[in-house]
């Protein structure tokens, strides 16, 4: 049953008058007018009249309340506080600074580089770029990083990741279990910090194993933006979103970071290492348009998910070198510093990279010390087709990399999910046999007695003798 009294008192109009009070006043008004015969016809008018002319006394604000109004926190209050704290001057280092190697701490001037990216069409806005620069300086201040660079942004479903790449010196890292490559080497050579908000906390991504890379190759997934979210793919991914994110970032970096020819040269002693060569002249825009003048900087990631092969574990009969050779022919380590023109061309295109010139292509003659040479202020954009979203820009002074995208490799063909394995055939079911117990030997199955045919039998074949009443 509905409590009418409660209902009437609960409904209030915007002036705070409850329905109960209102009806009471209307009836009061009618009772005053008892002699008039038009009460019913004029009912609506009376109701309206009462509503409009009702006066409710509200105590005026006291002196104290007017002079000291209560502060109501605005909706953006928290963000304001965070931003102000973020932009404060950096405190002195809390952990001791790492010893500076020959090339001291380096963070690029993002504001200058972002102007180049703006010409190509990738721009986060002046404010955001300044905040990113500040975040990079903070990372240098607070961690062991020797140099940092803005890697890019990975877009996600509910949040996105800003990614900063850094070089952390790897003396005495914690040992990782074997298939993992050592921290500071191989796929774990560079460290990555991610954040959802530039001003927020930057999380360092963990080291990854070859298994993560192998499974990330088959998984096609848009990230949600939460680092510990499950990666729901088939075949299942052994890890959570932060591992998948790191695997994709490493794959993208190792495929798309390039340098002009002759900037790096192979180390004299160890062909797998490279160093910056002393004689290097930045080629002009015309030369840079050709893909032969660009080389890959990082080694290729093997099918096994590492940079170098593990020492194979061989049986006593096998020759270790032979096994190693077999592994190498199946999964070769490519030469370092290979030019872009040798990359497998993307389906339907001649090469794997798109080259486009943006901006002012007018050729100018240089003055003063560079007399005789010509230059243009155009910006060259190189985009790989296998990783849409990555971009390398170059002009006559410098070059720089960035990635903005969902972290998905382009295939050309539509995605086909991998079929699960065949269901195994069930084994033949064996008949149940009673447990053999030497103390109670099994009764031997008696031959069916012809007398017993019409009688009931229990499960062992013994005749149920229900005529026995004793």
């Amino acid at each position, binding site marked *: 049953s509905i409590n009418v009294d409660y209902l009437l008192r609960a409904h209030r109009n915007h002036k705070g008058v409850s329905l109960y009070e209102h009806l009471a006043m209307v009836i009061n008004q009618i009772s005053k007018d008892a002699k008039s015969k038009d009460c019913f016809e004029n009912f609506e008018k009376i109701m309206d009249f009462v509503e409009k002319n009702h006066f409710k006394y509200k105590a005026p604000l006291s002196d104290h309340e007017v002079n000291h109004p209560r502060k109501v926190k605005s909706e953006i209050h928290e*963000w304001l506080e965070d931003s102000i704290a973020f932009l404060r001057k950096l405190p002195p280092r809390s952990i001791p600074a790492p010893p500076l190697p020959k090339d001291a701490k380096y963070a690029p001037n993002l504001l200058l580089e972002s102007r180049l990216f703006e010409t190509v069409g990738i721009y986060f806005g002046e404010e955001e770029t300044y905040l990113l620069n500040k975040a990079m300086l903070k990372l240098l201040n607070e961690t062991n990083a020797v140099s940092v660079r803005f890697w890019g942004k990975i877009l996600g479903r509910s949040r996105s990741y800003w990614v900063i790449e850094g070089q952390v010196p790897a003396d005495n890292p914690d040992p990782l279990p074997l298939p993992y490559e050592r921290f500071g080497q191989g796929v774990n050579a560079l460290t990555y910090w991610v954040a959802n908000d530039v001003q927020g906390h930057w999380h360092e991504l963990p080291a990854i194993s070859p298994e993560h890379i192998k499974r990330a190759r088959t998984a*096609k997934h*848009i990230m949600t933006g939460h680092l510990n979210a499950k990666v729901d793919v088939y075949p299942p991914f052994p890890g959570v979103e932060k591992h998948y994110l790191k695997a994709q970032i490493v794959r993208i970096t190792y495929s798309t970071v390039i340098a002009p020819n002759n900037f790096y040269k192979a180390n004299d002693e160890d062909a797998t290492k490279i160093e910056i060569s002393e004689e290097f002249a930045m080629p002009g825009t015309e030369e840079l348009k050709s893909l032969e003048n660009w080389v890959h900087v990082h080694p290729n990631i093997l099918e096994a998910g590492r940079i170098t092969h593990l020492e194979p574990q061989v049986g006593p009969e096998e020759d270790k070198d032979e096994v190693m050779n077999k592994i190498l022919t199946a999964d070769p380590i490519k030469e370092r510093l290979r030019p872009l023109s040798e990359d497998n061309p993307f389906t339907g295109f001649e090469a794997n990279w798109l080259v486009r010139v943006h901006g002012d292509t007018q050729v100018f003659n240089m003055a003063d010390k560079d007399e005789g040479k010509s230059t243009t202020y155009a910006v060259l954009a190189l985009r790989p087709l296998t990783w849409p979203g990555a971009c390398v820009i170059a002009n006559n002074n410098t070059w720089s990399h960035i990635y903005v995208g969902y972290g998905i490799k382009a295939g*050309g063909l539509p995605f086909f999910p991998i079929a699960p394995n065949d269901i195994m055939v069930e084994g033949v079911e064996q008949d149940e046999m009673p447990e053999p117990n030497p103390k109670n030997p099994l009764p031997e199955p008696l031959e069916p007695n012809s007398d017993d045919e019409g009688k009931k039998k229990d499960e062992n074949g013994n005749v149920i003798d229900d005529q026995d009443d004793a």
Partner: protein
Amino acid sequence: MKLELAILKLNESQQFDQIVFWGKIEGISRDYYIVVGLKFRQQYEFPHKTFFWCNEEFRFAELPPINREHKDKVDGIRTLFSGDHTKVLIKVVDEDDPNRPPDVNPDQQADVDPEKKLLEDTDDEKELKVTPKNFTELDRLAYVIRAIDIDCSVIPVGAFRLTPNHELRYNDEFRGLSIPESENLHNYMHFRNPQTIEKQEYIAREEALFFYDFLDPIDKDLPYGCWALHKDASKTIATIRSLLWPGYIAYHRANSNIFGGVYIGNGIKNVDLPFLL
């Protein structure tokens, strides 16, 4: 700046209530800039949209209507736009064309003759047959732009209202969604002729005049989860990104009447989306 001038020039020659920069489709060698002209007045229920395209020379031309014949094949084309709008994507071989180049393969010569014989029988039907047009990149552009416009084009609830004449108008009273409201995908609608039966009946019943949510909401779009709503750090600006057409972004600033949407991308639909979510 050249874009602005070209848009103003367009405004001179044609009378639109509003011209909006729709977006940019990036190709290999060149990009296409698209603007759309909206005519609200005297249009029943939904403004008429006319699309114009141009490349970097900024001379706008009207986008041709969709070539219905090859409509189904377009979804299968997943390569980038080249930038050359005359590039032929699907070549149609006209059997009645006397200038048709002979088949190159000599082994097939024997097959050609019986085919020709058949064609001669259908001589009287020749005049009725419409010469099929080659499917150029411009046609693909026309199809892709209209597909994106139908699937995307997001506006916040309350930005438009229906007048008693069933014209769509900007709502001058629109104060914007509040901060918590702008985080909910249900408060955004498609700026297109309502396609769900529910909304069409709503309009037919004349209730749409008093409420603002008479267009299709975006949270019912399939595949579920194809819209990504992000708030910026201060929580006042909401950006909605489409995962089906990567490159479409709609934005709205809470508590203000600033909203809009733009597509900047390569014009390829992300058909793998159901597998990625």
